[in-house]
Each structure stands twice: as structure tokens, then as C-alpha cells.
């Protein structure tokens, strides 16, 4: 048997001492002095020790005791009052455990509130109903498969932990498909009306369209608080000057309804380096820029001196890697734009050769082929401009070129295109080409891919599929930003792949040194993940749901750090959504789960308790004996 209403039990148990106290109260007896108690003692003994059975008499106390026992038994049988004429339902509990669910609502987090409400939904199940517990954040996870065992469901709810990551329900559609729909004889999917899907969330969810075909979706709105000031962006850049200096960019977002002012503090290796004040209007983001000066190495931490309900985004960490020289080989018939743009970075040592002079070499960090191809490329990092790399999968299209391609989208979060805005870029002519399936389209036009990234174990290739001379790109600010990103990206790869900032939920590649066999990654909470490099050149850390500094211990190479931060505007905008849009359907949030079955055992228990008290009082008074 399971006990679902723990609060009621707690209340009833609290009454037990009260009963004990009542029993401890001594019955007030009239004192009478008599000649001798001899005969009374004998009488009492005789009365008690008389025959084991006596004639059953009509006694009020007997009836009360029987009633008490009957009520107690009824309570243990857990009677359920049906409020809705449904049975055999399937309840799908989708519980948001993303970063914003760690927002404090009073003394409790939103996640605790959500699990409590989910527990109330489980309480309302009848014995023939089943439920499944699914959590969603950046990934969807089935915590408890379909069962009617409430103890298992309760335990599953208890085991849910918050993750410092974004929210997305895009994976949930596939998981729920088999539960929420049936396939008819012709293979068409029909919604199963006996399923109820309850989304417990604050409503900031991407990928809600995956629930478009799910019937009977309820949205339980969790939380009320919206006041939050958080750091939603962070980057470490070298400044473009004569000397190498690092600049730390932090974006501060105000989710609240009023302008907020706060101090932002930069620490390097625990030492305060700078403090700046920032005023952020309601709903907007402001940038704060710190210069590290002579400090060129260490762990940087940016903290927001502001108290709010969502402390997770009030501090971020980054890593400043000491600069190293970057050798760039420019294979061109002559391109002053490229020469100029690469020479801005003081780390870059640029070598320019003609296409006919090129022989495959591995001693350059980046090789740029401008308007020329090559027969073969070794391992390394390559940029092909207006030409295609000699790699299987890349092939010229039909037609081979397109005039005036229109840029429709670019990847705004990829390291190559960060901070670059291609909106104003006009291109005269571009290649039309096919790419390998695993290639990443970084900038896309309607007719073709303008910039593509293709990476293998040994080669990292960026293709810019147009002649920059036949475009306004070199004159647009996105050009130096992209090239700087490119150098940074390739330099990072050549420097064992460690980058200054990572985001939670991101898969982080770990590149070992030549002699390293093992690496142990220690998460901010102290958990460890061990990697062996036998037979592989790169390991991938996927357990990055915690924000903070990860430490990588190699067996031979020096330790490295992985700064992982939430950096999500969506999560920092903690105000709960009134409604969610699932594929064009608006589902308005409610505060509580609508109960379909109501357990009423506690009323029986209460009645039993009252009967017992009455019985005790009557026993003491002996009025009806």
C-alpha cells in the first residue's frame, strides 16, 4: 500500500500525541474513606476474573468502537471519489528542469513547485490509470516509464534534478508519439484521446511545435517572479592594437519591468581587477567591456552585484589563454584585403605565395586558398575562397555559379559568425556547389551555401563560396569580424582546442597531448568523468549541464580548464509565460492540476478520530454504562 497524501498523514500523526496526552490526564475520582477495602478488592477481582464470556449487552461504547474500527478500515481501503467519468487514462507529465526552473519562488525553487504539482496530478489517478514522467531541458529524458505504481512515480519525481541549460521540447515529440497516437489500418496516425499531457514549466520553451499532434495538452504555469538581472553573454577577445591585450565582453540583461542598476566586477584568479556600473532598462541588454591590461593569462570571473530570484546567471567564468603565434599561409595571386585583415592580429605571421608555388605542408596553422584550388591537402586548417576543396563530397553544381545571391540566414551562435552581421552584405556572383552531408552551413543564400564548415578528424575546412572582389563584403564590418573569428577558431583548434568560454549543454571536444593516455574531467560539483585516449584522438565531454569551471587532468600534459556558462537570454528572462503556443494552438496556463479523482480516505480517518475522542469522553463519564 502507498500513502500519497503525506501532508494528511503528518497532520493525523500530529494528533496522536494529543490523544496520548488526553489518556495521561487522570480521571478525577471522589475520595471516600471506608472501613476496609477488603471486600471491594475481592469484588473487582471477581468481576474481572469472571467467566471469559458474558452476555453481550447493548452498550453505546461498543457501538462507538465498532464504528471507529469500520471508519479506520475504510480509510485504509483508500476510497476515491470520481469527479470525472474517465478511467484507464494515460497521464504524461512533462516537467521542465531547465536553468530557469531554479528560480526561487519564496523559499522553494520552481522545480520543487513543479514536482509537487505533478505529485498532485499523480494523486488524482485511479487504480487503472497510468503515468509517465518525462523531463525536458536541452534534452528530453524519460525519468519513469509508463506505470500505475505510485511509489515508482513518486520516487521518479524525487529524483529530478535541475540542469543549468536551455529549454527545448523538440525531442519530446518523438517520445510522445507512440503514447499519444495510434496507427489505423491505412498507416495514418490518429490521436489517442485517452492521454493527457501536462506540461509543468515557466513557459520559456523552444521546440513546442513538436507537441502539435499531441492531444489534451495542459500547461501548468510554474512561478510568478520575473525580476532578474543576469549575464547573458561573455567573450574574451584580443584587442587589435600594437600590443596584445585582452578584452572581456559581458552582456547584462534585465528581465524585470523596471530599469536596474548594478555593479559588475571582474576578477582574474580571484583578484578583483575592475568594477563597472551598468544600468539596464527593462527588457533590454547592455554590454560591459573590461580590459585585462597586462594580465594575459588566468581564470576570469565576472560577477553581478545584484540580488534577485535567479542567482545562476549572476556570475560567469572564462579562461584567458596566453597568446601564441599563428602562422598563416596565404595562397593567392594577390589580395590586399586578405593580407590586411590577417595582419591586424599581432599574433599572426603571414606568408604569401602564388598558387603555382604551393606544395602541401603541415607546418602552418591556417592555409588560405584565394581564388585557386589545389590537388591535395594534408591534415590542417584550410580556408577556400571562391574555390572548392579537393575533398569527397564537394562538387560543382549546375549551374556552376549564381548571380546576386540573396543571404537569407546565418548561424548566429557559431564561433565563426559570432558578432558578425551579414544583413548588409551584397554579393555579385557565387559558386553553386554540393557539400558533404556532415558539412555545416554557416551562411546561406536562397540558391546556394555561401559559407560552409566541414570538419573531419584531421582536417577543418571553411569554404567561402564567392569571390570577395565581386562583393561588398571586404567593405562590411562583418568581414574583419569573420576573419578574426576564423583565426580564433582555427588557432583554438591548433592550441589543443581549448576555448575561452563554453555554454552549458554544449558538447566539448577534449584534445589530448601526444603522450596522454587518460584524462579525468572534474565538474564544478565535484563529479568526475574519465576518458581513455586509446585508439582515438579526441574525446567528447557531453556532461556539461552544470555551469562553472570544469578541470581536465591529463596524465602527462598540464591541466586545462573548461569555463562553462549558461549565457542564455531565454533562460534569464524568467518571467513565466501566460500561455504556450504548440504548433498554432495556444494553451493557456493554469495554476493547479485539475483533479479527476479525489481521494477521500482522510475524511474517514478524521471521522474515526472524532469517534474515538467521543468514545473516550463517554467512557470517562460513564453516563451510559
Amino acid at each position, binding site marked *: 500500500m502507498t500513502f500519497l497524501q503525506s501532508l494528511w498523514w503528518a497532520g493525523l500523526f500530529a494528533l496522536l500525541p494529543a490523544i496520548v496526552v488526553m489518556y495521561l490526564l487522570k*480521571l*478525577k*475520582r*471522589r*475520595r*471516600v*474513606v*471506608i*472501613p*476496609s*477495602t*477488603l*471486600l*471491594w*478488592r*475481592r*469484588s*473487582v477481582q*471477581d*468481576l474481572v476474573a469472571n467467566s471469559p464470556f458474558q452476555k453481550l449487552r447493548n452498550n453505546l461504547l461498543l457501538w462507538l468502537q465498532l464504528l471507529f474500527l469500520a471508519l479506520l478500515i475504510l480509510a485504509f481501503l483508500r476510497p476515491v471519489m470520481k469527479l470525472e467519468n474517465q478511467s484507464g487514462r494515460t497521464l504524461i507529465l512533462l516537467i521542465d528542469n531547465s536553468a530557469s526552473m531554479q528560480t526561487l519562488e519564496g523559499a522553494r525553487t520552481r522545480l520543487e513547485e513543479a514536482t509537487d504539482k505533478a505529485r498532485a496530478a499523480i494523486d488524482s489517478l485511479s487504480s487503472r490509470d497510468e503515468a509517465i514522467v518525462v523531463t525536458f531541458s536541452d534534452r528530453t529524458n524519460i525519468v519513469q516509464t509508463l506505470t500505475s505504481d505510485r511509489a515508482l512515480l513518486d520516487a521518479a519525481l524525487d529524483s529530478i534534478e535541475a540542469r543549468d541549460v536551455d529549454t527545448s521540447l523538440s525531442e519530446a515529440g518523438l517520445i510522445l508519439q507512440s503514447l499519444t497516437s495510434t496507427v489505423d489500418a491505412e498507416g495514418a496516425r490518429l490521436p489517442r484521446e485517452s492521454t493527457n499531457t501536462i506540461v509543468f514549466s515557466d513557459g520559456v520553451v523552444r521546440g513546442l511545435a513538436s507537441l502539435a499532434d499531441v492531444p489534451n495538452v495542459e500547461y501548468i504555469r510554474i512561478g510568478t517572479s520575473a525580476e532578474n538581472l543576469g549575464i547573458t553573454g561573455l567573450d574574451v577577445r584580443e584587442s587589435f592594437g600594437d600590443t596584445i591585450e585582452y578584452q572581456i565582453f559581458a552582456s547584462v540583461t534585465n528581465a524585470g519591468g523596471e530599469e536596474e542598476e548594478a555593479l559588475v566586477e571582474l576578477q582574474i584568479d580571484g583578484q578583483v581587477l575592475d568594477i563597472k556600473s551598468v544600468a539596464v532598462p527593462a527588457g533590454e541588454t547592455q554590454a560591459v567591456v573590461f580590459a585585462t591590461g597586462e594580465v594575459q593569462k588566468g581564470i576570469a570571473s565576472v560577477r553581478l552585484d545584484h540580488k534577485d530570484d535567479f542567482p545562476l546567471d549572476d556570475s560567469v567564468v572564462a579562461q584567458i589563454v596566453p597568446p601564441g603565434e599563428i602562422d598563416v599561409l596565404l595562397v593567392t595571386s594577390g589580395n590586399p584585403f586578405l593580407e590586411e585583415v590577417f595582419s591586424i592580429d599581432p599574433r599572426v605571421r603571414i606568408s604569401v605565395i602564388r598558387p603555382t608555388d604551393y606544395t602541401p605542408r603541415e607546418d602552418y596553422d591556417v592555409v588560405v586558398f584565394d581564388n585557386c584550388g589545389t590537388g591535395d591537402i594534408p591534415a590542417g586548417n584550410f580556408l577556400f575562397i571562391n574555390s572548392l576543396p579537393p575533398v569527397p563530397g564537394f562538387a560543382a553544381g549546375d549551374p556552376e555559379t549564381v548571380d546576386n545571391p540573396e543571404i537569407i540566414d546565418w548561424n548566429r551562435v557559431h564561433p565563426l559568425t559570432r558578432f558578425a552581421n551579414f544583413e548588409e552584405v551584397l554579393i555579385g556572383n557565387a559558386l553553386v556547389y554540393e557539400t558533404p552531408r556532415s558539412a555545416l552551413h554557416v551562411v546561406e543564400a536562397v540558391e546556394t551555401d555561401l559559407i560552409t564548415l566541414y570538419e573531419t578528424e584531421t582536417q577543418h575546412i571553411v569554404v567561402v563560396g564567392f569571390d570577395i572582389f565581386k562583393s561588398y563584403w571586404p567593405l562590411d564590418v562583418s568581414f574583419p569580424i569573420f576573419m578574426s573569428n576564423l583565426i580564433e577558431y582555427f588557432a583554438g583548434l591548433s592550441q589543443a582546442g581549448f576555448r575561452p568560454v563554453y555554454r552549458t549543454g554544449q558538447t566539448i571536444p577534449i584534445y589530448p597531448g601526444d603522450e596522454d593516455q587518460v584524462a579525468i574531467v572534474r565538474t564544478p560539483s565535484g563529479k568526475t568523468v574519465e576518458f581513455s585516449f586509446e585508439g582515438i584522438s579526441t574525446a567528447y565531454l557531453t556532461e556539461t549541464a552544470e555551469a562553472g569551471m570544469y578541470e581536465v587532468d591529463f596524465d602527462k600534459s598540464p591541466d586545462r580548464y573548461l569555463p562553462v556558462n549558461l549565457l542564455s537570454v531565454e533562460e534569464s528572462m524568467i518571467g513565466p509565460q501566460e500561455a504556450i503556443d504548440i504548433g498554432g494552438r495556444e494553451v493557456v496556463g493554469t495554476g493547479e492540476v485539475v483533479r479527476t479523482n479525489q481521494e477521500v480516505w482522510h475524511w474517514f480517518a478524521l471521522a474515526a478520530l472524532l469517534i474515538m475522542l467521543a468514545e473516550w469522553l463517554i467512557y470517562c463519564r*460513564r453516563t451510559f*454504562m
Partner: protein
Amino acid sequence: MATAELKTLLEPELLARLDQLEVLTHRVFRGRQKGERRSRKKGQSVEFADYREYVPGDDTRYLDWNIFGRLERLYIKLFLEEEDLAFHVIVDTSASMDFGSPVTKFEYARKLAAALGYIGLRNQDKVGVSDAKGRVVSRFRPARGKAQLTKMLSYLMTLEPGERTNLVESCRDFVLQNTQAGIVVLISDFLDDRGYEEALKHFFMRNYEVYCIQVLSPEERDPTQMGHLELVDSETGERQEVTASEALVKQYRRTVETFCGGLRDWCTSRGMTYLAATTDLSVDQMLLGYLRQKGLLR
């Protein structure tokens, strides 16, 4: 002691009626003084008993010359000697006797003892009175004649109820102190935790004719207190919590009957006489009716 106080023990009206009574014994006891009762002992009286052969030293005045004339042998005429009767009254003065209405059991026992003593003294019996309080601590030594009445009553007036009943010790001490056989009247409630059997067995040592008068108050026989009670034993201080329901009171009545019946049967089977009295039965009725019926008085 003031006469008025003594009169509370024996009212004049009662005395007039008591004058007609005398203590009746069913046995013949050997007395120490010549009294008004026939004795088994042969002696000097007018009532011829038997003959025996003359032996030198016998009083020649009692030779029966007529027998000598006929048989030529000397015979002495024997006469039944009249002796005094030893009449003992033991009054239980334990604390449990200090209860009851309209008079306490002790008051009732004392009046009864006074009346019996008076009857005895008036009939020239040797009357002794003792108290039974733990052990016999005082007694009115056996004496004869109406002249001893005041002393006896004064002694009775000195008695006060208190302490715990110890019938065994009381009876043993009484038997050791009173060696002369006779009639013993024990007036008590017999409510002793250690039982009455051991106590009464002591009387067998002296071949007494024993009367046990059990005095109980009407409340003891039929309790009127109901509800949740804490009963305190007047002698031991022991507490007994009871809820005096109808069932329990009914059981109590049965217990009292069993207890009294047990005492009666025990006495009867051992040649003793049991008499039950309640304090609402007047002493007059007790003496003139009940005790006469039972054969203690005539």
C-alpha cells in the same frame, strides 16, 4: 466517670428489661468460686448428685447413714456444687469499627458489651471485658456482682477505636490471659486481611463456648456511593480505584454475602455460634429478640 455518660451505654429502660435476662450456657464449666450455677464438680449444695465410698479425711457430716444401716458400708453423699460462670466479652476496637450509621459499629459493639456485661454481673457471673486492637492492650479483669457494674462501664467508656485489626494476636493474647473456660462473646466486623480462621482457632485451647457477633453497617452491606471512587482503607491507608457501576455494586453485595456466609459456616462447623448484626438494628432488639433466639440469653 460521670453517671450521665455511663447512662448513654445503658439506658434505664433497657436496664429494666435486662433484669429479666440471664446468660445461658449449654455446657457446664468448672468455676473457681461457688456461684449460682450447677457445676460438674461435686460439692456443697442442696442438689444431690451421687455417692462414693468414704475415704479417711472425708467430712463425716456427709456420710449417708441410711446406706450404712442397710449395707454396713460407708458412703459419702455427693452434691452438685454451684459455681460462678466465666463470661468474657471481647470488643473489636480497630479503626474499621469507627464507621456506620445511625451509630458507629464501635458504639454499637460497646453498648452490646455493656448490656451483656450487666446481665452477667447481675446474675453473679464472672464477667470480663477485653478490647481487640492489634493485641489486647487493656481489659476489665473478670469480676462478679452488680457492684462491679460501674467499673465495667467506666472501662468500656475508656475504649476508643483506632489502629489496624489484628484478630489473630488479639485472640491469642486473650486466651493466654484468661485461662478459665466459659462463654466468650467476640464482637467485631471481622474485616481482617489476614482472615479470621487463625484467630478463632485459638479459642479451642480453652474449650470456650464462643459467640461471634459480626457487626456491619448498612452501608457496608448495601453501598450507596456510585461513580468513580477512590476508596481509602481506614486501617491501612491503601487506595483502591473503582468505578461503582451497577454491575460492580451487585458483585460487591455478592461478595459481602459470601464473606458473611463463610464466617457463619466456619463457626457453625466448629461448634461456635455466629450472629450477624447491623447498626440499624437496635440493641434492645438484638438482646431481647435475636440473642434470646440464638440461646445466649434466657
